[in-house]
């Protein structure tokens, strides 16, 4: 098991570094002087030269890369050009909101998918099945930021059940936090939930045709045990494998969702940093998202190995 985790960890390293390397190269290889871009038109030559030195832009690309890599590994990401605070201190303040939001959205999406997908498969070709399948087709095609606006119109503006926007931290009460995060999580989860429902349905259909399900029935086990334990245990495996990818899409979705609902999260920080040309924060944001995804993927790999013992022996 430990060897397996070690192997998975090595495979996860590219997930962390590839996006970062792309960001590194972009800044250095894009046309124009990054220092000039950051400081804007009014900057004097001395200011630009000073910033170039601070960012280490005068060194050859190879040397820059080594320095940059060393800084990443030691988490020395420099100071924000806007807040003036160290990036490593700024990022965690925003990351919590995003992780909370994405986690709720992911859990919601998985729950809906497992229940709706299995139900659909068990009632194959019924009206319920057909409406679930149609809903998933629509769900996969709905842009989450537009769906968020529709949710706001229905639940916040018309029904007035939930706030239009704004964030209440969990420290101010779990329920208040929940209401502030309910619509964002729903909007964020819709597409992935639809995708996972589809997957769960077809996986459940496959599993229901497996001989070991017939064996369970031939042993006289009641149907709720056959479905709930014997079929669910294997049918859920494909869904678990896509959770990592789904979480990636969701973290991407937070960018627009956090802006719509005015949530102080990583996505919004990133967009604002891009608008302010605050490149150290952009780099820090990308690193944070990579690390969150890497950690999540490692957790999924471990869960995967627990629920599917076959994988440990490969």
């Amino acid at each position, binding site marked *: 098991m430990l060897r397996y985790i070690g192997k998975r960890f090595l495979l996860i390293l590219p997930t962390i570094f590839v996006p970062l390397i792309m960001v590194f190269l972009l800044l250095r290889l894009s046309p124009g002087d990054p220092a000039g871009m950051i400081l804007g038109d009014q900057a004097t030559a001395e200011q630009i030269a000073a910033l170039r030195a601070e960012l280490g832009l005068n060194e050859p690309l190879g040397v820059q890369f080594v320095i940059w890599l060393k800084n990443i590994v030691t988490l020395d990401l420099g100071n924000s050009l806007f807040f003036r605070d160290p990036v490593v201190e700024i990022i965690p303040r925003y990351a919590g909101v995003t992780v909370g939001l994405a986690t709720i959205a992911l859990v919601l999406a998985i729950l809906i998918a497992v229940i709706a997908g299995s139900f659909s498969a068990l009632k194959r070709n019924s009206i319920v099945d057909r409406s679930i399948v149609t809903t998933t087709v629509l769900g996969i095609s709905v842009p989450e930021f537009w769906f968020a606006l529709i949710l706001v119109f229905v639940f916040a503006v018309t029904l007035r059940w939930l706030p239009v926007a704004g964030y209440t931290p969990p420290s101010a009460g779990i329920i208040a936090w929940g209401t502030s995060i309910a619509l964002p999580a729903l909007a964020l989860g819709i597409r992935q939930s639809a995708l996972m429902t589809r997957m769960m349905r077809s996986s459940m259909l496959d599993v229901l045709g497996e001989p*070991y399900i017939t*064996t369970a*029935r*031939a*042993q*006289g*086990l009641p149907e709720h045990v056959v479905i709930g334990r014997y079929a669910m245990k294997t049918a859920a495996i494909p869904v678990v494998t896509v959770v990592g990818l789904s979480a990636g899409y969701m973290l991407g979705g937070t960018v627009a969702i956090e802006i719509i609902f005015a949530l102080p999260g990583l996505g919004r920080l990133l967009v604002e940093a891009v608008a302010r040309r605050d490149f150290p924060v952009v780099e820090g944001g990308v690193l944070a998202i990579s690390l969150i995804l890497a950690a999540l993927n490692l957790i999924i790999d471990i869960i995967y190995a627990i629920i599917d013992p076959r994988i440990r022996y490969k």
Partner: protein
Amino acid sequence: MTSSISSNILVVEDLSLSLKSGKTVLPIITNVSFSVSKGESVALVGESGCGKSITASAILGLPPENAVVTGSIWLNGIEISKLDKQGRRKLCGQKIGFIFQEPMTALHPTLTIGRQLTDTLRLHLGLSKRAAMDRAAELLDRVGIPRPREILKGYVHELSGGMRQRVMIALAISCGPELVIADEPTTALDVTIQAQVLDLLDEMRAELGLAMVFITHDLEVVGDHCDRAVVMYAGDVIEYGSSQDVVSSPSHPYTVGLIDATPANNEDRDRLVPIPGTVPPVGHWPSGCRFAPRCSLSDDHCRSRPEFMKANVTDIRCWHPDGRVSQ
């Protein structure tokens, strides 16, 4: 054949099964009758597609969803075909054990072997978790699995093919059933392992006094391990009798052809005689004798459906029990 219902463990009488899809009704098996007494092994023999597995599923009470089943099935004097779905399900595992062809796919891939055994034991015998585990270990020991406690914690993919089928047998006999249905239990195994598993099945049958329905296409196995044989062709029983008689002196032209086409039953291996043509698919059966289009004896009689007739030593569904073309 339909000898007294009470003296037999299993009596199948006039069992027919059709599949309904939309407005069409496809007959799959028609008027199947046979019986199995305590400690007896009855073979259901035939090529793939003849309806033997579906017969087994009907006895078990787990036919396809769109199936229409008629006829009666008696288990130990009770007409189980009259029971509802729940009632049938309770018999499964408890009174009727089932052994599948491919233990690798018939056992759950991600539940431990112990879990699968104890789920059944606790359900039917009401055992505690620990007692069920002890009983499971005994069962594995009994079917010849070494280190049963360790195996209980493991998974199917860790076992060899022969071991897997032993686990499957342990599962089938776990609650002391009266009847065991084995659907091609050795087809997926290596030849050397096949013999071991067949011997184990014989041993269990003798020891526990099981009635056994043995589904196979292998006539050699029928002769060596079964007391009686029921030969099926295109959803029909076409010949039955003691397995020795069916194998050594068959009367139905199909059975004769089947045995001529089997290398082990034919001294001169260079001159195996194949049966001309192929089994007609479901829905394309001739209205009279279903074997007629492939039969050298067929004549005008064969356009109507034959009844069972006494032949040499067996009973056959054929217009020519003497093996001659009528003039």
